[in-house]
């Protein structure tokens, strides 16, 4: 799919591009017929139904009929199918059988028509649907006007500041002699028995000699049913921005512990009197423990490490989860991020926006913003809310027997390809399928009618989720564990889920979902910064997979990591190299994807952080 079009909106692989006009459309545009005037008069005839397609009607009660044969869109009269085209030049209406004749008879200038039921341009000479940005703009304006009469502006005070901080180019940092001296003074080389000093730094080959193995691979001892913790820690320690934060000394445990000692008094009474100051005088800080863990794992020492202090600190933080029993890895993950947030947020005195990750490294890395739209099915009034989220929990479609047929939403529908794809995906759940279901409009039950502020009564409504802002690292949690309080039982859903190694999140963004709601018209929606950078920012790469094997009551978590495109299995203390097939065939429970490209924003204040 090349991006070489004459007037593309933006250069990029997956943006909305305008195909070059056919010669007839090009002629029409450049003719002296007054295109703008023509579209303006057309706009007057645009009737937009809420949640419906825009139509062209001169009169709201008009039933268009084909001039020559009198068939209407509803068929009948021997017409050739439910389409009617109104000529843009003379407004005469024809069915597909008679449209080419009309164009031929009155050429030039009568080739372009509009599908009266769908507001799509059609070239009768080329016999194909054609596209024009100005026409689309007119349609969208009509749709927006109709919607504006209904909906309030999507007010969300927390998100109003669209964080339009200026994007800056990355400037690589190089050390000056003073920096070099400081580094030499304050550091010591990492040497360990089986390494060759000259190969340090060139660690990314697939050779199996210990010195060329990736940094940071180190087993974690199971302290007694703690594989849920080990698996998440392995994934986090290899989450690039997270790892970099700690390796760059952004949270220095020595400094923090010193400060923590001073804050002993202040901590009392925080979180509902839950001051869990452990014996020994040191304050509990999960970030400090992560700092310790990071140092240990990247130290070059390859003997398995026991994250005992971390367990201890976490049990202080999440006392209700503190027990010898096996826990849920995802629950631990959320709990841990929450703990880090708490520990780090103490330093800030002004309210931070979690959605934009201003508060702590956990939110900066994992936090995204979800958009939720509730749409009245009667009048189209839309109520929008934004919420931050740390991850995406996706339902598995366990009742999957049907062929996976791509929907019209944002997929291609090539004839043959469709069939091949269908036969292969018959019955297989995919991550993208789950995401599609996640962002699909869902009709709410009639017992959950939403109060429409326009209609002033409770109406049946649709709900649709989409992603307003993608996090740096997207964590997907596959809901494999079902607890039914009715049946008083729990079960695990074991079915296989396919997940890609590279993932493009564009179709699930709010901008894409909104655009498809307006019929995928060529028009930049307000507030959406559509530039090439944003497009690339939706591409993600898989770097860690946490799998669960076994039954609900007796199972085991392991993590697969992918440093430099080689896969390693991290099973508590045992780190082994595996082929990517093993990973593809595994039963994913949590999936970690990192954004392929990072962007830097100018700092808000000039003071050094």
């Amino acid at each position, binding site marked *: 799919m090349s991006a070489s079009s004459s007037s593309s909106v933006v250069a990029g692989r997956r943006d909305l591009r305008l195909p070059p006009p056919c010669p007839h459309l090009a002629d029409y545009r450049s003719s002296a017929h007054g295109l703008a005037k023509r579209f303006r008069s057309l706009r007057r005839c645009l009737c937009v139904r809420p949640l419906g397609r825009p139509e062209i009607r001169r009169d709201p009660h008009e039933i268009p009929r084909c001039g020559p044969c009198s068939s209407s869109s509803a068929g009948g009269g021997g017409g050739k199918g*439910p389409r009617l085209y109104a000529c843009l030049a003379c407004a005469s209406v024809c069915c597909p059988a008679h449209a080419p004749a009309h164009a031929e008879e009155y050429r030039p200038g009568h080739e372009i028509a509009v599908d009266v039921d769908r507001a799509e341009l059609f070239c009768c000479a080329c016999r194909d649907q054609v596209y024009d940005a100005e026409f689309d703009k007119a349609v969208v304006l009509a749709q927006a006007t109709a919607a504006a009469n209904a909906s309030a502006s999507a007010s969300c005070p927390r998100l109003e500041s669209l964080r339009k901080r200026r994007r800056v180019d990355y400037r690589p940092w190089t050390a000056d002699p003073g920096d070099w001296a400081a580094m030499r003074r304050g550091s010591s080389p990492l040497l360990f028995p089986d390494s060759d000093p000259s190969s340090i730094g060139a660690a990314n080959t697939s050779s199996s000699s210990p010195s060329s193995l990736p940094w940071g691979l180190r087993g974690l*001892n199971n302290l007694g049913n703690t594989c849920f913790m080990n698996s998440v820690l392995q994934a986090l320690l290899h989450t690039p921005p997270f790892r970099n934060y700690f390796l760059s000394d952004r949270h220095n445990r020595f400094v923090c512990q010193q400060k923590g000692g001073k804050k002993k008094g202040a901590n009392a009474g925080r979180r509902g009197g839950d001051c869990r100051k452990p014996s020994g005088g040191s304050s509990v800080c999960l970030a400090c423990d992560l700092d310790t863990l990071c140092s240990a794992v990247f130290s070059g020492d390859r003997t398995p490490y026991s994250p005992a202090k971390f367990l201890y600190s976490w049990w202080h933080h999440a006392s209700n989860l503190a027990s010898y029993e096996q826990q849920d890895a995802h629950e631990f993950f959320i709990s841990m991020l929450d703990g880090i947030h708490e520990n780090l947020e103490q330093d800030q005195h002004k309210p931070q926006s979690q959605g934009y990750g201003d508060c702590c490294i956990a939110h900066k890395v994992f936090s995204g913003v979800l958009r939720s739209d509730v749409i009245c099915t009667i009048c189209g009034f839309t109520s929008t809310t934004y919420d931050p989220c740390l991850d995406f929990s996706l339902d598995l479609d366990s009742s999957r027997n049907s062929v996976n047929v791509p929907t019209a939403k944002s997929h291609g529908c090539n004839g043959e390809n469709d069939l091949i794809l269908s036969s292969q995906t018959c019955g297989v759940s995919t991550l993208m399928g789950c995401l599609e279901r996640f962002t699909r409009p869902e009709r709410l039950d009639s017992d959950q009618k939403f109060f429409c502020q326009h209609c002033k009564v409770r109406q049946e*409504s649709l709900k649709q989720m989409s992603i307003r802002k993608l996090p740096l690292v997207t964590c997907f949690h596959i809901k494999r564990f079902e607890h039914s309080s009715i049946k008083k039982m729990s079960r695990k859903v074991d079915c296989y889920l396919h997940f890609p190694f590279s993932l493009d999140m564009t179709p699930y963004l709010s901008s894409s979902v909104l655009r498809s709601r307006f019929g995928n018209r060529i028009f930049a929606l307000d507030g959406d910064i559509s530039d090439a950078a944003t497009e690339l920012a939706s591409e993600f790469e898989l770097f860690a997979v946490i799998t669960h094997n076994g039954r609900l009551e007796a199972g085991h978590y392991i993590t697969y990591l992918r440093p430099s495109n080689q896969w390693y299995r991290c099973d508590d203390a045992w780190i082994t190299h595996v082929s990517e097939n093993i990973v593809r065939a595994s039963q994913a429970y949590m999936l970690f994807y990192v954004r392929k490209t990072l962007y830097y924003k100018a700092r808000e204040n000039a003071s050094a952080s």
Partner: protein
Amino acid sequence: MAASNDGNSSPRSQLASRCFEDLLDSIIVDVASECHRIARLGLDRNLEEEEEELRLSVQARVADPSSSSEANGKNIVDIFGQTHPAIADEIFECMNCGRPIVAGRFAPHLEKCMGKGRKARKVTRSSTIARTRHSRGSPVSVYAPYSNATNTNRAPNGTTGGAGEEYADYTYGEP
């Protein structure tokens, strides 16, 4: 217009059929028109890549149909050439009581040492709250249904109690 038993020649059933066909045609044209636009404007997904991924996945599962390779024998040698016992035997000091503890038994020790565990916990899980929070049909909810872990998707592995366990309703500090 239920199917009558008059056969195909009844004018009513003919009309009904024609109606249905027209509706169906109209829907098909809708979809065709939308797909045409999506394809022309370059909005369709890269199907080749997806097919390739699916093909690789199918291949991978054929190569390894059982997930037995996921289960790890504990006698294997890791990439650094090390072997480890099934129960970690490193010994360190408990940070709560100071006693030396074997790593593989640290968690049960810490549980008693810190006074945690089943005996100590008193809070019960409120399943109604969990169900409500987890339902997708709460349009005016402030919290997005996918933002935080809910109680209805946990894997209490290693428990002997099964579904009768008491779990605390863990709420996360939402500002």
